[in-house]
């Protein structure tokens, strides 16, 4: 028994979790269960980030996707009137179109995955934090700020759209 075996076993478990969870999100008919499975998939992906030594990214992944986005989706589901859906989403008519979009992307991702070799590993215990901070706040500070201003504009726009006129 060695660390390599443990890491490989953990990676295998997390992979099963990610792929199984993602398949569940697409295949399961109940939308709340799909949201919860999505949170599970994000958690498994955070585990993969930890295995790669990127604890900070894993923490942000859980903080934003599990703690905020999933709750937001659950909110959306709860406040949306649900009609009965007698058939599974999987057998809807979008399947050919979806396949048309997914296949090229899958090929591109597979090519990338099999040609990428140089995976630098950060120091364990959150060693990726300085690198992440440097890239976000120094190297890519301008795109980061532009993105945040864009989000702010979107938020203000949404508030203006939903605001009632009678107040």
């Amino acid at each position, binding site marked *: *028994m*060695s*660390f390599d*075996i*443990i890491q490989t076993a953990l990676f295998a478990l997390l992979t099963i979790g990610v792929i199984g969870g993602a398949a569940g999100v697409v295949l399961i008919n109940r939308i*709340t*269960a799909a949201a*919860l499975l999505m*949170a599970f998939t994000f958690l498994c992906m955070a585990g993969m980030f930890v295995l790669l030594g990127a*604890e*900070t990214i894993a*923490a*942000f992944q*859980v*903080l934003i996707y*599990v*703690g*905020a986005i*999933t*709750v937001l989706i*659950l*909110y959306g589901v*709860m406040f949306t009137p649900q009609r009965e859906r007698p058939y599974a989403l999987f057998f809807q008519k979008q399947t050919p179109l979806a396949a048309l979009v997914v296949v090229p992307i899958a090929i591109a991702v597979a090519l990338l995955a099999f040609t990428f070799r140089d995976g630098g590993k950060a120091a364990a*215990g*959150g*060693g990726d*934090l300085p690198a992440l901070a440097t890239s976000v706040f120094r190297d890519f500070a301008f795109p980061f700020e532009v993105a945040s201003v864009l989000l702010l504009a979107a938020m203000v726009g949404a508030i203006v759209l939903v605001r009632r006129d*009678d107040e």
Partner: protein
Amino acid sequence: MAPFGMDPAAWTVLRLLIAILGAIFLVFNGALAQIYFERKIQAIIQDRVGPIHTGPWGLLQTFADAIKLLGKEDIRARLTDRWFFLAAPAIVFSPMLASFAVLPFGPGIVGADLNIGLLYLTTLGSMTVLGIVIAGWASNNKYSLIGGLRSAGQLISYEVPQILSLVTVVLVVGSLSLTHIVDAQPGLKINLLILPLAFVTYFIAGLAETNRNPFDLPEAESELVAGFLTEYSGMRWGLFFVAEYGEVTVVSAIVTALWFGGWHGPFTDVHPVLGPLLGVLWFTAKTYFFVLVFMWIRATLPRLRIDQLMSLCWKLLIPVTLTNLLVTAALILAFPQSHIPIAVANWAMLALVIAAVPALQRRRLAALRHRLETRRPAAFISAERPG
């Protein structure tokens, strides 16, 4: 590193098991002790005696209650959402348990000295929301759903001032690691003297994050039966409660580590083995002091209304914490060597906030009264005279 010539990989697994069992032991016994303290302190404040019959000074009462809870039938209403209903207590409980991994109990006594310990703790805190929303949704009960949704709104709102308060400490110390933060405040040089305003805002936000009084709206029994807990009984209900007490402990431990010097205290450097153990004792004592403050607040303050809760967060706490963060960051850039300007600014802002709150409150009430007297909103009129 492995003792007794063990295989290092086997020792890793074994150490993980020991740590998890130790954390579960701490959490469950801590919850039992806290329920006892809670009953006794509320009894003292309300001029009663509290539990006295079971064991000396009623000490065994909570054990008896725990055994009763364990022995209860596991009831699940037929129209609840089976898997969500079963999963919700676990989703609330496990992040709380995982938080114990990074708490610095003593010098060198910490589960995992993560470089990003504080970020890890806030991350786990945000996962609790998911469990509570699911509990409210799965119960298939209006009160539960309202409780769950209130909780989501409350926790997401109060996460903002909470994280902003933590970030000011991180700025002053220059590290996210809890052990570094504790190391940075030896002796009487605790962070409370530098950042009192951040402590006050964090403590208020922490009260809200743990659903404690006066912010326990998700389970407000006078309006919502028991909120998201309505359909739960037996040990599933107990698990929610253990999780709540565990979160109170975690928030108190964060306060202790960030503002009150963690395990630092008199006589921690007298002996290489006894010193760290004494550090654990100091850490526990400080943590439980704040746990007792939580209970004192519960026995003293009435519950807020949901709109008051939200306006407190968005109109007072978030502006104050944002200003505090901005001022602290500017002062760190201006005076990188000394913490004294930050301390002066922070104490001044704290005094300003405390002095301004009554005036603001009076102005708000006067405006409200004026509006009610001159122009009654349409909603009130239609509620009085339907049709």
